[in-house]
């Protein structure tokens, strides 16, 4: 920067001389028609012009040259520097003062413009940084983006080291990076870290260290350390660059703060959600398990105590309720276990090629008793492609969907199961003619412990509220989607997709004899 100033300066001095020379020339040419005062004015004008355009040095030169020219050429005795009239000293004085005042003024304006330019550059760098940081996903991405911006501002590669692995009680630990092999860098790094002050190259502290060590400070203190490594440590940073780098470091610190805060918020939200789940699970367990258990206990103890006096029909009824309640508990516990597998990511999907028809068949057979009151129709095209699924999990999906249909649809209403292939997926629909789901609840039905409004059959609302949540977990694990649609003509329909991943290996030709 200094070298450039000197270079510009020479040109400015030459041009200042030129301006004065031109003014002098004009005065010499017009001399016969000009009074001495007019000549002084013209020369003064040349000084003003120079001072307005150039720096103080050239302006002073111009005022000296004009004064000299005025004295030498236009003030008697001519061609000497002697002065008869002391009032001409006043002329020199005025010229000097004007030059000084003008240059001071223009220099200030110029300075302000340079400052404004620097500020604009800095705010542009900050703006670009903020925009990129906002887009950065995750701590490491944020640090990498921030380092790129620092590097651009300093014209040298920058790296940011996160606090982890930097801080330790007692001795300092350093990241595994060759730059920290230099003892001077390590000392500077510790200084920068503990004092929170930029240290090393391009800063006001320890300039002999060839690397800049820039602490990134957040509300909690120093949270990261940036290094900037110039190719040539002899070339320093301009004060504007230095200011930009420091401003960027501040912005990075705030971004890290925001990220930390967002993480804490996310964690708090997850905690609240977990707490809500625990509460719901607890109430579900206490109600849904204790109710059937109480029924079983009552029926069993009645049978035991009153065996002799009970009519056969009552005994049969009590035994039937024990059986029914036990089955209900078995279903509920099965759902709770599936739920835990879905929630904890323990859902080990063992996929193999299967015709959907077979899985549906198993589910229909197992539900035969539950579905007694509903005619079930199935529309599975014979040429439906095979899918890669975990048969036990997809069976569970069918069981839950059929269970819901049986629970909410009035007795005697039909249940339709259909499948078709579409866009590299198999789409399956289980539809009933029950009350359907309120339009606003189409998504909520997949939430845990959602229960449909009690209606239709006697045990609506007796479900665990987990069925559809489990279905969604299972279908998602298969790479598919599940959603609820309003059925034309009334009723609820759940659709799910299973992606068709190519075709299975071809079958061998029928072997040998039958």
């Amino acid at each position: 920067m200094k070298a450039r100033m000197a270079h510009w300066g020479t040109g400015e001095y030459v041009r200042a001389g030129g301006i004065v020379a031109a003014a002098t020339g004009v005065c010499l040419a017009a001399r016969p028609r000009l009074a001495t005062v007019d000549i002084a004015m013209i020369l003064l004008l040349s000084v003003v012009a120079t001072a307005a355009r150039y720096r103080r040095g050239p302006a002073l030169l111009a005022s000296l040259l004009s004064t000299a020219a005025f004295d030498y050429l236009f003030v008697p005795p001519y061609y000497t520097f002697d002065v008869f009239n002391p009032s001409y000293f006043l002329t020199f004085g005025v010229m000097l003062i004007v030059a000084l005042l003008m240059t001071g003024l223009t220099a200030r304006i110029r300075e302000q413009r340079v400052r404004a330019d620097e500020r604009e550059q800095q705010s542009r760098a900050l703006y670009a940084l903020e925009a990129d940081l906002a887009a950065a996903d995750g701590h490491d991405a944020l640090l990498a983006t921030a380092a790129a911006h620092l590097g651009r501002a300093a014209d040298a590669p920058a790296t940011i080291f996160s606090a982890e692995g930097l801080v330790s009680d007692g001795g300092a630990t350093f990241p595994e990076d060759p730059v920290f092999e230099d003892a001077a860098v390590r000392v500077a790094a510790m200084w920068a870290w503990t004092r929170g002050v930029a240290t090393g190259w391009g800063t006001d502290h320890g300039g002999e260290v060839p690397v800049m060590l820039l602490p990134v400070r957040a509300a909690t203190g120093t949270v990261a350390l940036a290094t900037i490594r110039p190719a040539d440590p002899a070339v320093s940073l301009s004060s504007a660059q230095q200011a930009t780098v420091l401003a960027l470091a501040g912005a990075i610190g705030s971004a890290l703060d925001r990220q930390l805060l967002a993480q804490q918020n996310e964690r708090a939200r997850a905690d609240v959600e977990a707490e809500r789940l625990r509460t719901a699970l607890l109430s579900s367990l206490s109600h849904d398990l204790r109710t059937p258990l109480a029924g079983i206990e009552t029926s069993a103890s009645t049978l035991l105590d009153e065996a002799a006096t009970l009519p056969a029909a009552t005994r049969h009824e009590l035994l039937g309720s024990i059986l029914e309640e036990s089955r209900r508990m078995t279903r509920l516990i099965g759902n709770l276990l599936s739920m835990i597998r879905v929630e904890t990511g323990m859902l080990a999907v063992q996929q193999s090629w299967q015709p959907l028809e077979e899985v549906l068949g198993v589910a229909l057979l197992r539900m035969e008793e539950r579905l007694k009151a509903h005619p079930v129709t199935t529309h599975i095209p014979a040429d439906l492609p095979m899918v890669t699924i975990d048969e036990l999990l997809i069976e569970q999906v069918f069981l839950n969907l059929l269970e819901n249909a049986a629970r909410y649809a009035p007795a005697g209403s039909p249940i339709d199961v259909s499948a078709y292939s579409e866009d590299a997926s198999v789409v399956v629909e289980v539809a009933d003619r029950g009350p359907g789901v309120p339009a606003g609840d189409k998504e909520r039905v997949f939430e845990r412990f959602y229960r449909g409004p009690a209606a239709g059959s006697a045990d609506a609302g007796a479900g665990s509220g987990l069925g559809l949540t489990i279905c969604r977990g299972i279908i998602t694990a298969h790479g598919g989607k599940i959603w609820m649609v309003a059925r034309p003509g009334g009723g609820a329909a759940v659709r799910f997709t299973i992606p068709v991943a190519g075709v299975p290996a071809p079958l061998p030709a029928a072997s040998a004899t039958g």
Partner: protein
Amino acid sequence: MAAPLPLVLIIEDELHMRQALRAILAGSGFQVVEAASAREGLMQASGRNPEVILLDLGLPDLDGREVTRSLRHLTSAPIIVISARGQEHDKVQLLDLGADDYLTKPFGAAELLARIRVALRHAAQPLEDLEAPITLPGAVMVDPLRRQVFRGGTEVHLTPTEYRLLLTLLRHAGRVLTHRQLLEQVWGRQYAAQTHYLRVYMAQLRHKLEADPTRPRLLLTEPGVGYRLRELSEPLKR
């Protein structure tokens, strides 16, 4: 019935399950001997010579595979594995090691007795060569000598592989066959892992023999394990 009552060995560590099994079996005229652990069960199996063994999957003292192997050394009596849902992988292992069938808890008395009946029947009369025509549920008739299959009086054309599959299931009617067992017997040992062959042919068979292939009455799926031909009302004749 002058023949001595069949002896059933129950190897089950859980007291209430053992009581329930004993109640069902004794009520149906079986003799029962109980073992509360695998080691005790093995002793009883060699000492009492049971005709059917009910083996709980998940005994605390020995691994189920170990028990099955040891039992197979001691006796040829059919082994019926009693397991919970979700233990399909273990069940398949025991079936492939020589267990004959399985039951999933909770089960009803009828189901248990049907399994024992089928197991005893197969133990008494292994079916290798079938000759007499066999009538199956769903108006399906198989004529092994002519290799013809009829449904509702009209002949159904089966491919050789489909026929082999049907006949394999028929020889073990009422009993579960694992995917591996079926693949080995119908396609050969090198295809033992190609489960989808089996599923495709099973679907074809169902479309030809079942009134509603999504609600099979004859060719039953044992999810995660294999297939079972529904138990025949009358014993097969040679």
